[in-house]
């Protein structure tokens, strides 16, 4: 299956390579570099490339390319998903997934890659299992290890590897037993020029941070589970219980994990928290343009909208922006043509407004297209879909855990066309 892995930085240097079968020369990456050159934007490099003898499947994460080489038929998603899992594991171990961090921890990285694949087939990809075999680095342990000659490598086979619940470590112990759940919803919407919603979807995710001793068996039930008709679960969730009773029943992994993601599709009615009034126009004569944006609350369910931000990707011809914001600050980056208006809290009494003129390059025809506005926002204590967790019960352990659920709504890919 997966033959080799090359990690390449944005400059095109291969700074890590790992082979699970015979060694493949790194010259195979030349085909990739060629495609990379052609694509201009790193996001546009085709994830799957064909070369005379190999196939290259790559992902782009955190300014790094993870490039895997394969020789025979394998589902591309299998490889892509695995590569993302590798990147996730690095993130989990080192706090970030960047060139410097990988270079600094190259031995642990190598040990991890060794455990994650055997002969190109995934062996252990659960972070809880991996952490038992190869302990993540921390300053204290490094110091202790250098003094005592101890190692980062576990000596026994993690219990999870053998059980039906590979995601949980055995023998977990905490003094404070706590389970926190974050329900985060992101609104993906396209609003057209006139303010009508073209499409709107909600992407929800329940992230959990569970620090409970022993083998707790949790059950989470919702006030309105009918909302959730398109869901995906962490493998720990018992699907049959969900099917029959619409409750999430699971033995949680230890630590942070994504319990569930859900999708409320464009077929449903989705509340849009803000409206945007805008006009952007470019004049034929005088090589200038006008911009006027106002934002107001629409369906906020009585909560305040925070961290409001508008990003506009201006056409190439726009040289500078001379604007005044009634609230917040704006910046215009000349090189990237990015106008960012950071508003902050939305005040319904005094609507934030940004207006002024745009100076254009002379002698260049006016741009035909109008840039679209990307909106960022955050609403605390609200899941815009109306989802609510009604209760969380724990079985299997005697102690009483602290429990908490937090809701937040954000704008995902929220776009206003002009």
């Amino acid at each position: 299956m997966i033959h080799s892995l090359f990690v390449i930085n944005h400059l095109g240097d291969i700074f890590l390579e790992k082979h699970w079968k015979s060694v493949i020369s790194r010259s195979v990456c030349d085909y990739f570099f060629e495609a990379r050159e052609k694509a201009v934007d790193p996001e546009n490099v085709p994830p799957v490339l064909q070369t005379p003898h190999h196939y290259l499947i790559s992902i782009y994460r955190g300014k790094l390319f993870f490039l895997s080489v394969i020789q025979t038929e394998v589902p591309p998603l299998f490889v892509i998903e695995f590569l993302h899992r590798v990147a996730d594991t690095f993130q989990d171990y080192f706090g970030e997934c960047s060139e410097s961090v990988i270079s600094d921890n190259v031995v642990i990285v190598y040990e991890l890659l060794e455990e994650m694949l055997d002969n190109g087939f995934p062996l252990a990809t659960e972070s809880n299992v991996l952490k038992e075999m190869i302990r993540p680095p921390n300053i204290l342990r490094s110091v202790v290890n250098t003094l005592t000659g101890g190692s980062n490598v576990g000596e026994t086979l993690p219990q999870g590897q053998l059980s039906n619940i590979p995601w949980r470590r055995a023998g977990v112990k905490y003094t404070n037993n706590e389970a926190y759940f974050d329900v985060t919803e992101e609104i993906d919407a396209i609003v057209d020029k006139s303010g009508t919603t073209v499409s709107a979807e909600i992407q929800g995710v329940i992230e959990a941070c569970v620090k409970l001793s022993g083998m707790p068996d949790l059950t989470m039930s919702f006030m309105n589970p009918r909302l959730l008709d398109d869901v995906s679960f962490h493998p720990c969730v018992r699907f049959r219980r969900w099917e029959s009773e619409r409750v999430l029943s699971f033995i949680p992994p230890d630590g942070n994990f994504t319990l569930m993601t859900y999708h409320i599709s464009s077929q449903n009615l989705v509340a849009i928290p803000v409206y945007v009034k805008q006009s952007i126009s470019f004049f034929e004569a005088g090589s200038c343009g006008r911009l006027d944006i106002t934002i107001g609350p629409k369906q906020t369910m009585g909560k305040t909208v925070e961290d409001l931000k508008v990003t506009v990707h201006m056409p190439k011809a726009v040289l500078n922006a001379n604007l005044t914001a009634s609230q917040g600050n704006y910046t215009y980056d000349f090189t990237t043509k990015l106008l960012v208006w950071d508003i902050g809290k939305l005040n319904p009494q005094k609507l934030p407004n940004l207006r002024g003129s745009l100076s254009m390059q002379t002698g260049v025809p006016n741009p035909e297209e109008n840039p679209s506005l990307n909106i960022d926002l955050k609403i605390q204590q609200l899941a815009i879909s109306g989802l609510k967790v009604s209760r969380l019960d724990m079985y299997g352990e005697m102690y009483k855990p602290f429990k908490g659920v937090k809701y937040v709504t954000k704008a995902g890919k929220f776009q206003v066309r002009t």
Partner: protein
Amino acid sequence: MFGGFHAVKYIFIMFSSHRHDDLKEMLDSNKDSLKLEAMKRIVAMIARGKNASDLFPAVVKNVACKNIEVKKLVYVYLVRYAEEQQDLALLSISTFQRGLKDPNQLIRASALRVLSSIRVTIIVPIMMLAIKEAASDMSPYVRKTAAHAIPKLYSLDPEQKDQLIEVIEKLLADKTTLVAGSVVMAFEEVCPERIDLIHKNYRKLCNLLIDVEEWGQVVIINMLTRYARTQFLNPNINGGSGDKTFYGSDEDEDEDEEEKEKKPYVMDPDHRLLLRNTKPLLQSRNAAVVMAVAQLYFHLAPKAEVGVIAKALVRLLRSHSEVQYVVLQNVATMSIKRRGMFEPYLKSFYIRSTDPTQIKVLKLEVLTNLANETNISTILREFQTYIKSMDKDFVAATIQAIGRCATNISEVRDTCLNGLVQLLSNRDELVVAESVVVIKKLLQMQPEKHSDIIKHMAKLTDNIQVPMARASILWLIGEYCEHVPKIAPDVLRKMAKSFTNEEDIVKLQIINLAAKLYLTNSKQTKLLTQYVLNLAKYDQNYDIRDRARFIRQLIVPTEKSGALSKYAKKLFLALKPAPVLESPFKDRDHFQLGSLSHLLNAKAGGYQELPDWPEAAPDPSVRNVEVKESVRAVGTVTHRDTGALWGPQRMEGNSASGLESSSGSEESGSGSESEESKEASESEEEEEEEEEEQKKKKKKDLKKPRKHQRKSKPRKSESESESDEDEESESESSQSESEDSESEAEVKKKKKVQTRMTAHWSEFGNIIRVLFLSFLVEPAPSPQVTPVNTFLSNSLVTDLEGLSLSDSVLSPAVSVSYYFALKSYELLHRITGEGLSVEYCFSRQPFSPDANMVAVQMQFTNSASSDTKNLHIEDVKLQSGMRVKEFPEIELLPAGETATAVMGIDFCDSTQAANFQLCTHTRKFFVSIQPPVGELMRPVFLTENEFKKEQGQLMGMNEITEKLTLDVKCRNEHAIVQRVTTAANLSRVPCGSDKECRFAGRTVTSGSLVLVTVATKEEGAAQLTVNCEKMVIGTMLVKDILQALTQ
């Protein structure tokens, strides 16, 4: 972390001196820390792709190093360089061979992993042997590793194929989820053509699927898709329109009859099983699993059911852009075949300006495929906004898409054309050029209507520079020169002027235009044509020269030019069929979706073709697995078996009861075959129909016990439990079809077991009481045992009281059991403990604070002259997974006094010791408690039938049999019972035969069943059988019981 920093530094040094002497020195030293440091630096070199092969001799010496991290890094090094230094690599082999025999499964597994990863041909026989051995290892983890090693060996030496297939066959039969994915992977790499190996394991794989780890799931699902294509019939065989009547008809019996005459399609229950068991995996977090299920449904499911995958696939569109890329490619292919499936999700494919171009283009493809008469207006409106995008490649693709919509949907053709013509005045040349190309294609469909558009385009030649667009315009004018008789010659004039500066494709079209004009309007254009042809004659491009020569011969009549020139007009101005604008994804579905080959639209190496459905279904009985009688009795028989088994019996039941004779006779009259087919066609339907089916089954279940009652009294209890089970599990429709439904219904099962147990408690309560009394009568023969009641602590008594209150049935058993003779062990000797001596024994009581713990009772005796204070436990050192519940601190133990306390230890079903410190106010003592394996279980009460049934499920590797000769003193039943129960905390299972003693228990932590059978024969010969899922426990228990019985 520091290792990395050092490594960077040292690499620099190394390369400046071109020596690795320092590393060699470090590796040769006898300090582990130095070795580790050296190995870390070497691995860092490997990771960076630097050559470290000259260190091989120095590294390989450390293969037997005790430090596990050094060892691991040496392994990494070996796997990387062994191929290059085969002779030296052989030095390490013996270490791995030793490792293969290690008691620690992790070491066994990693030894096998490295051994099989060393690509040295000479060790092939050793590898083969190791794989074979590991394939029957007790630890499933080692077996998994063996499965991984199979493809490695195969790639090293394909000649081993036959032997490897044997191993694969063996591992395919493995029941653990851990092994399933890996062995199917091996199967796919070594012998994907041996589909016959799957038959017997098909149902098991389907049932295990949901519990297999996600990567294994992908491989298994892909394999099963292929399998199903060879074994089952096409569910859509009845053809598109026929479906509706077919699906609608099932409620009505009469119509059903009619259908039968047309030989209706009947879905194989195994086919249904696969579809049903994969469906929940659409909810997986792993995109690869979702995609695998989606392709399975696309290729295997009846049309009416394929729809379920759309939602899941649309959900994946929120994932990483690479995932989106692959998913959209597959959606594009699917949306051509099954447009209706994705139509409700149209808006999810709308494009955002922030999407990468390759995603935009794919979304556009899907939108185009989804366009139809009803939604075309919204789609076109959407396209209008896309045309304004800044991303020009995307705009070009949008124009193409509009063109395709226009050709496919005739209603909007004019609207599209007008829109495209407007685009001709766009400022961006690329947009205009693309529009021209598309308009050209559209005009070809009905040119006569659109001469004004052609005129408009002719004017564009002055401005537009994109060669493809110019060529398109010229072709158009040439082709339809009769519609624009005045303009055409003028265009040619202009073109002749600029001929030398044009691109090749434009030149070719100029020649074409000239030729066509010459044929239709030779008066005006004769000279011009001559001029153009002359220019072309001396062109640099040989294609153009050739073309000019060819055309001149054809159109200008000379003496030499023969018959052909007569037909020149027909040749050039023949009616040309309008081009069909097709999706590039058309017909891609002959590749298995989700595969690499599909993505590339080319066969990748190792791709297994998805076979066509067979004309007639192969024999389905090959998938039948011989089920043991005991298992069958539980009601986990297959659909097919149901038909065969219950057919005649139902008749019996009917005639006996006389109830429901009308419907019953109808069913029985049509015979078991038609019954079967009806059931199957019902199962095709959605839920409602299944419910109906279940109702029927319930009826059957109701009938069953009736029949049993009539037939035979002794089977009564069995049939009762049977119907119980069926009722309990009625929500799982799979019950009837699945061979072993444990994995599916784990939760349920637990409940079931509980209810069953309580039932048996009451049923057999009396028997138990009698049994225990008989134990009590038995005197305690062993000299080491001491009666326990002397050191029963107060707290324990209260605990027990609580128990007896809570469960009145349990209480006699509990209160009885502590008259048992218990062996006590020394924890702390009087002398080392400076007067404090501690003994402990396993009290065999349920430890009330935590049922998963083994209760350990400790007796503290203070024989010193002073008081001991604050007796407590500290610093517990445990193997992972183990837990300890300490006893409450004993504040004061006066001199000469004795106290007892109970602590609980969860040994995690292993005999590893729990180490801790026993602390007094002055001293600390390191002590450890190691349990004999017999104490790791608690008794459970089973009936004889249950015992047999459970035993039937714990066969094969889970069963250990040993022959023995009984000790002279131990030849009667009582003695055997006595000794076995002393050795292990088991309870006796009532048994009809006096030649056999059976015992049952469950391990404390995992609750795995432990079944022990001692069968006696003449003259003290006996056979001991232990069945236990936990094989380690099983083997150890055999040893202990053997010892107890023979001494």
